């Protein structure tokens, strides 16, 4: 059996041949913007609200309604090719009147570019934005986490449920600024709820739909589920 195993002397994800270097003496504001920001503003004139360059990183603020179209274009356009989704997250500011921002960090491996795309969600409206799961599968768990922590609904995500907290978690969304550091309930109440959850003994309805799985459950659990207890996650 012959298995090829290559060693490359340089990161060759990019094809442009320009040797990258550690950034030095980056200005706080200003500096050269990522060329994709200009291209994006030309292609979607009404949806790119503003472009900032902070610490050498280009941020494009886009209109919420056009997020999906913009992302699809960034991914598909041959001169951009943002094929790698680094991160999906959200930011809530301490100033209560400031809207929540959803942040996508994109990388174009062929062109060695980094772009931050943001959109704003008004707090008094429904926190909803289009899911990019259809473009990058990487968004799957990152969007679930963002939903879990901020309560932002990503429309079009196939399986948007809590991921780090359990489904019956009642205290809300932990990373929101109105969520106290110690949680909403007293320590005693939190402990009581946590102990009563026993999440590893539970299966979701999806899991229980697996043929005959219900019959395989322990007698005690079948009884609890039969009595109408909700399943975990």
């Amino acid at each position: 059996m012959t298995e090829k195993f290559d060693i490359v002397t340089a990161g060759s994800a990019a094809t442009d041949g320009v040797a990258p270097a550690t950034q030095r003496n980056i200005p706080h504001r200003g500096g050269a913007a990522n060329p994709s920001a200009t291209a994006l503003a030309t292609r979607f004139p009404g949806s790119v609200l503003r472009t900032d360059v902070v610490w050498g990183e280009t941020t494009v603020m886009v209109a919420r309604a056009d997020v999906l179209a913009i992302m699809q274009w960034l991914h598909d356009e041959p001169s951009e090719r943002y094929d790698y989704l680094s991160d999906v997250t959200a930011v809530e500011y301490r100033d209560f009147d400031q809207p929540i921002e959803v942040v996508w960090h994109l990388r174009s491996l062929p062109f060695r570019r980094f772009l931050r795309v943001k959109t704003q969600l008004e707090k008094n409206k429904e926190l909803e934005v289009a899911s990019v799961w259809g473009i990058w599968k990487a968004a799957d768990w990152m969007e679930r986490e963002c939903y879990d922590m901020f309560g932002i609904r990503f429309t079009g995500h196939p399986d948007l449920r809590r991921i780090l907290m359990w489904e019956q978690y009642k205290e809300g969304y932990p990373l929101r600024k109105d969520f106290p550091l110690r949680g909403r309930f007293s320590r005693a109440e939190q402990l009581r709820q946590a102990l009563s959850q026993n999440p590893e003994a539970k299966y979701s309805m999806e899991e229980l739909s697996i043929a005959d799985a219900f019959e395989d459950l322990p007698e005690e659990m079948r009884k609890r589920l039969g009595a109408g207890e909700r399943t975990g996650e």
Partner: protein
Amino acid sequence: MANRTVEVELSTSGLDAQGRPQRVPLMSGDGGAPIDVMPHEAMEPELAGDHMLINIGPQHPATHGVLRLVLELDGETVVRCIPHVGYLHCGFEKIGEYRQYNQIIPWTDREDYLNSIGNNVAFALGAERLFGIEITERCTVLRVIAAELSRVISHLVWLGTTCIDIGAFTPFLWAFQERENVYNLLEGWVGARLTTSATRVGGMAADIPSGWMDGLQQFIRNFPQTLDEIDRMLTKNAIWVGRTIGLGVMSPEEAINWGLSGPMLRASGVAYDVRKDFPYLDYETYDFDVPVGTNGDVYDRFLVRMEELRQSIRILQQAADRLPDGPVNVDDARVILPPKSKATSEMESMIHHFKQVMEGPRPPAGESYVAVESPKGEKGYYMVSDGTSKPVRWRIRPPSFINLAAIPKMVEGHLLSDVIAINASIDIVMGEIDR
């Protein structure tokens, strides 16, 4: 471009020369004709087509922490895998919003605890971009040493635990012995072994003590021999090859689309290494190679990590050779405390010290996303500042969390026992996944 040829050396009964399990016909007691074994379907018809629900974890040694996998099995073949995480959720990102920048550094130890000093370096780099600080030459090289030592530790733990999962015990002992040497080095430098908290915004907690470089040189000399032994033990071992080859394959396009990073991505043939493509800490000036697999299976991930260990040693050697003299901390009164002797003898320095500790350094309003190549993949710290001494948002981009998200795809169609090997090949750390 060097190609490697794998020829299995140790042949084992039950495996053919390629390491694939052989079907040995059952022989009857008198050494004559094979026993006529009826197929399973015929013997137990009621079992055919029945899917089984299997739960692994959260407390299971092969899940590398508190990971829970719910598997739907058809016989021994995995039809569907539903992972559950969150059992170790501590809310690091929430706590970070209530801490000053230097106070967050101990939290970075505790997320990916196998790469603690590497996380310290990554966080400090992110915070320094937010403050607009250029660190000193000596600090840059020291941080490269820290990050590469940390990569060695993490890969050794991965190697050892994966060996245990797949059934080899000896390389585990060898790997952990070498890991112990690195921990001794770290202990001599920063005083702690596991939770190092070694960096500060603008520098390091401590310079290396005298004689420390001798210890590092000794490690650089000795470690490749251990690595060669492990290499001889595993790389052409029929059992090892048979249990890793062809498992959990991700094509390059899939690997990019699923956001895999680190050895997981490179094993699939994508030469994306943050150190090369988006360099930091002057990595572009070091001479090192990026190993890239071709098949994207568990065996390629093993080869990539083994080669990365060798490349880390190369980088360590170059860093040790070039370590310049000079200050470790930047000369910037915004972030660095005055020397202790001055703080106890001069009024201005004491006030400075007091304000620095009580109020904390304040970066200008802004945001930064700094990614480094951690042993698990692209580790990013995204920080948003509103001009106060505590971040508005501190986000960890957890590579093992995003790598693990692909496990339902990778295990589909494989055997139950291969789930363990595939899960091990992702190199997860639950502290980082759940944060």
